[in-house]
Each structure stands twice: as C-alpha cells, then as structure tokens.
C-alpha cells in the first residue's frame, strides 16, 4: 500500500523496474551466449525476439492459454534460429549475413502476421497475459512490497535459467562440448562428437531463449503485440552479451546493469522536475554509463572459434 515514504517506494520501484527491464535482456543475452559459445555469431536476436513476441500473442489468441502461448513462442524462436543454424552450420554461410536476414525477416513477417491473424495494422488485439506471482506476506512491506510483491513468473524463470545455463555450460559434458565447439572444434571432432550438431543445438537454444525474452515483452509484461515492439532490445542484449564477456553470470549481471540504468532514467525527471527540457539528454545517460563502465572494466575476449565455419578434414 502507498503508505511508505515516497522516496523509499521509488527506490523499491527502481528495483522492480530493474528486474522488469533486465529480464528480456538477460534471457536473450543467455540465448546469444549459447550460440556464440558454440562458435556461431548471432546478431539476429532482435528478429528472434520479435517472432517470439508475436507468436506468443498469436498462440495465446488461438489456443486461449498464455502458458501455451509461451511454449509456442519458444518453439517459434527456436524454429527461426533453426534457419540460421542451417544456413550457418550446414551450408557454412556467413553468420552476419544470415543474421541480418533473420532480423529483416522477423521485422517484416511479424508485421504482416498482424494482418494475417487479426486483419489489423500495427497493433494486435489484447490477449490474456501470464498472471503475476503475488507474495501476500511481502506485498504490504513498505519498500520490498513495491519491489518484489508482485512479479511476473518469467522473472523467476530468468533466475532459474541463468543458474541452469551456468550449470549446463560448466558442469555437464554437453556444456564442455559446446565450449569446445566454440574454442577448438578440431579437438571436439577428434573426440568423435559432431561439431555441426553441437552448433545447431546451441543456435536453436539461443532462438528459444530469445523467443522467451520476446514473449515476456508481449504476454508477460504487456498483453498485445505491436509492430517492432522490441525496439532494439535484441541489439542491447547483444551488447549485454559482450559486456558480460560471453559467460552466464556475466550476461546476468550485464542485463541487470542495463535494466538498472534504464530504470534510472525514469527516476531522474521525477526527482528533479527541472530536467524536463533535458529529457533527451537524460536518456543518453544509460548509454554513456555503459560505455564508461565497459571501457573501465576490461577487454572483451570472444570465443576463439567464433564465426569460423568448421570444415571437417577430408582424407583423400
């Protein structure tokens, strides 16, 4: 309830906004990580997010349950990533070319899809959204209530998926294979594991996670799909991936940092109303902070085998 100190409430809200803005970024960045750690550059994340966001709403509309919509979004994102995987891994195409193709296709097809499914331009009908998880005991606590009282379940998924990604990548044989496919594919091949399949699985996983991130935007956070609604979040996720140095924990922290600075730009004009004429400059702040932070922290070192198509050695 709005009984607490407004300043305290605002801080609580900042925490919540951080989580809300970070969730799609973290999920998509983790997806990108799976792709790039196996050696396939994936700049098509934006397109996969859009397709995920769209199919979540379309699926919910057709089937009637947002949970099934979520699953459909994951499948659709994975399917689009499958096309990327076929082009990049099977046909050894240029990863960036294919990625830009995916982005363009995602942008165009989802907007057309609005017309196919609803006969509308630009904005879909509203559908049921995924119900939020409410913690009644926490909700009346002044600051924490605002922050954690009522959150979308996908935000909790985000934490679980981060932990799971870390475990899979560093503690399972499959994760070892993935890392090997990105760092030193010939060793992996010598060990008798198919580099191609490891990479394909990595790319499809990335699409599935990006689809989940997009679905969070459309049916977790909002309740409809609008043309181009991801508004560049796929690219920001790509930046978060690089910022996080291609590790699960790094992606998670980078996503939270991006979410935090985005939330910060909403807080400033409320605290200092005089800034209203400087709104556009305040909005630069998050971007500037990211550059400063990244320049101050460390060098970014991508996986060694990235963007290099693996050619099996052929004995004649």
């Amino acid at each position, binding site marked *: 309830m709005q009984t607490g100190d407004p300043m305290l409430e605002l801080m609580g809200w900042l925490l919540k906004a951080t989580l809300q803005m970070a969730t799609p970024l973290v999920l998509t960045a983790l997806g990108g990580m799976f792709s790039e750690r196996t050696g396939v550059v994936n700049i098509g994340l934006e397109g996969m997010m859009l397709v995920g966001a769209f199919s979540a709403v379309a699926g919910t509309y057709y089937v009637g349950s947002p949970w099934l919509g979520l699953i459909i979004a994951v499948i659709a994102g994975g399917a689009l990533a499958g096309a990327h995987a076929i082009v990049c891994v099977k046909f050894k195409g240029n990863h960036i070319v294919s990625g830009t193709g995916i982005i363009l296709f995602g942008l165009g097809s989802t907007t057309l899809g609005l017309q196919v499914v609803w006969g509308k*331009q630009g*904005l879909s009908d509203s559908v049921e959204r995924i119900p*939020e998880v409410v913690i009644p005991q926490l909700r009346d606590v002044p600051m924490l209530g605002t922050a954690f*009282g009522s959150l979308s379940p996908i935000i909790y998924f985000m934490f679980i998926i981060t932990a799971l990604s870390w475990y899979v990548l560093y503690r399972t044989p499959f994760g070892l294979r993935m890392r090997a496919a990105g760092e030193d594919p010939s060793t992996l091949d010598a060990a008798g594991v198919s580099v191609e399949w490891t990479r394909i699985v990595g790319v499809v996983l990335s699409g599935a996670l990006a689809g989940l991130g997009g679905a969070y935007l459309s049916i977790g956070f*909002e309740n409809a799909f609008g043309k181009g*609604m991801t508004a560049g979040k796929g690219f920001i996720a790509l930046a978060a991936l690089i910022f996080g140095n291609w590790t699960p924990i790094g992606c998670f922290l980078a996503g939270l940092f991006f979410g935090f600075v985005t939330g910060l730009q909403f807080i400033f*004009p*409320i605290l200092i*109303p005089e800034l209203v004429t400087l709104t*556009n400059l305040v909005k630069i702040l998050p971007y500037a902070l990211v550059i400063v932070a990244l320049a101050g922290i460390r060098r970014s070192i991508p996986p060694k085998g990235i963007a290099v198509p693996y050619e099996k050695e052929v004995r004649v």
Partner: protein
Amino acid sequence: MEQRTTAIILIVIIVVGVGAVVFLGPSLFPAPPRVALILGTGGRGDLSFNDASYAGAMNARNELGWNFDVAEPDQIAEFEGLLRDYAAAGTYDVIISGSFDQADALALVAADFPNQTFAIVDNVVVAPNVRSCVFTENEGSALVGALAGLMTQTGHVGFVGGEDMWLIHRFAAGYVWGANYTNPGVNFTVQYTGSWIDTAIGQNLGDAMFTAGADIIYTAAGRSGLGAWTSARNRITGATNTTPLWMIGVDSPMMWYGCDTYDQGPGYAHTAPTFGLTSMLKRVDSAVFEVIEDVMNGDLDSTTGSIFAYNLENGGHDWEINGYIPYSNVTDVYTLTEYDSPLLTLSQSIVDTIQDLKADIIAGTVTVPDTIYWT
C-alpha cells in the same frame, strides 16, 4: 560461340520483358479511386493521427461511397515521391497529406501541380490549392487537465508524452495549465517515452509516476502510452493502491480501454467500472471526412488556400463525458461510443465546471498556453 548465342537470347528476352513491363504494365493497373491519402511515418496502429485519418477516410467510404488509395511510407524522404506520383496520375480529386511532416514536400509538389487539389492535416501549407486543417490541442488538453485537477486526491497529476517535441508540448502545456486552473499549485510530472511504439517504457513511466504519488495520468504517446494504462490496470487488479487511479486517453474515445472487457475492442458494449477518467478528443477523422465530403459537393476548390481551424468551438476538440461524446456541429461521422449505461458518473457540478471552462475558452476570456511555460 554457344555462350554468345545464349547471351544474345538472354539480352533480347530481358529487353522485351522490360519494355513490356514499362509500356504495357500500367494498362493492367486497377482504376484508381478519386481520393488519395498519405499517412505519416509509423503507419496505422499508432492509435493517433494515422489511425484517425484512416478512420475518417473509411467513414467517407462507408457513408459517401468514395473509395480511396492509401500509402504508408516509412521515411520522410518518401513523401515527395508519393505526392508526385499521385499528382501525376491526374485522376484524384483530392490528395490528403495525413501528417505534419509532409508540409515541406507538399509545398514543393503543390507548386508544381497547380491544378491538383491537396489537403494537409496538422500543419499549414500556404498555397492556393491546399486546404490546411489545424488543431488546437492545448485547448482540448486544458479541459481534461481541469478535470484531472478536480479529481486528484493526492494533488499530483502526471503526463506521459511520446517525444520531447513541439506537438506534444502543446498537449502537456494545456494539461498542466488546466490542472492548475482548477487546482492551483497542483503537483505535476511531465515525462516523455522517447518512442511511439515501446510499450515497456510507457509502463515503466506509469509505474514510476504512480509510485511517486500521482493518481491521474494523461497519455499522449501513441502505442507506448498504452503501457501506462497497463500499469494502472495492474495496480488496480493487484489492489496495490488505496486511492483510485485514473487514466486519460487522447485523440479518440478511450474510456473503454479501462473496462474489464477492454480486450473486446472499441466497438463492444462495455460497462462500468472503468479507470478511464475521460479522453481528449481530437477529430482528425472529421477533418479528413469533411475534406472528402467537400470534394464531393464541389465546395473544396473554393475553400482551398485557407486554413481550417478545428477547435473547441466547432467540435474539433472535445472531451469524453462518462463514455459519451458531446454532440458537436462537426459532421457526425464518428462511430459514437455511446454505451447502454454510462461508464462513469461524474457529478453534475464537475461536468458544469469543465463546460464553463470550455465556454470561457471559446469566448476568449481565458487563453491557454501552447508551449511549455514553466521552468
């Protein structure tokens, strides 16, 4: 040698094909209608002027039976080409520019095609063959601002604009002025999403404002404004607020969007309760409809070169009262959102206060600023 033959055959085929497309192609094009509409960048689905001008043209098609061609460019550099194409076709009785940023292109094209009639919405082009339709958003916003000033319990009202730009400043200035008119010294927060499509930012801004103590938010941010409505809905269904929260819509009647049955769309017979307090109506659709109607009656050519001002007096702007749109002397073409029972019951004294303010603005006894006048 064989390759040369192949090449020659290929070249012949290409030349013949290109010739056929260039010279015979246009004969296959469908006969154009007599009205052309060019929407602004961003296209339909913006819940703002693009949707409204499209709705006006659709109404004209349904009621007057005149079909129309529509183009949705996505770059400012494309306006001029489209205007020239339409004008060069020579078959259109009127070509309507549906957004303010087409003014430069229209000024050039209107000078090159003096016999073609044009119209532009939201901006002025000084030319003998152009009708300019302009609106006074600040006056309409002053009415909803005054209502917000009366209704706020926390003494704090909010405004979510789409971009820090002149057009949105008019909405913001009128709103803040109106709130101060009925509730002097009221707290206000003005913020911009910086995007017309990003609903996530709208929702975050709404959340931040509600958390900071605002209880009424006026949105003028296209689709991203809907995010703020979602924020209010979440707070109301989650019962995280003790004071009632209100949203104010823009351009078209939007009180239905605050009903529980909002997912049925605008045509549905919605019932109370709603958290939509009112909407500032900007009848871009009537402007477009009137242009087409005047062309049909043969009145347009005598009125081009003039500026048509749509304001409170002639019903170009108004406010939605309890789900009802007040009768206006602008042609009654709006799909009137009249519900079986009112969506809200504002007390008569409140309605009277706002109507008095409206009369004062029309009479000119008070003037509403149209730029940011504080700070």
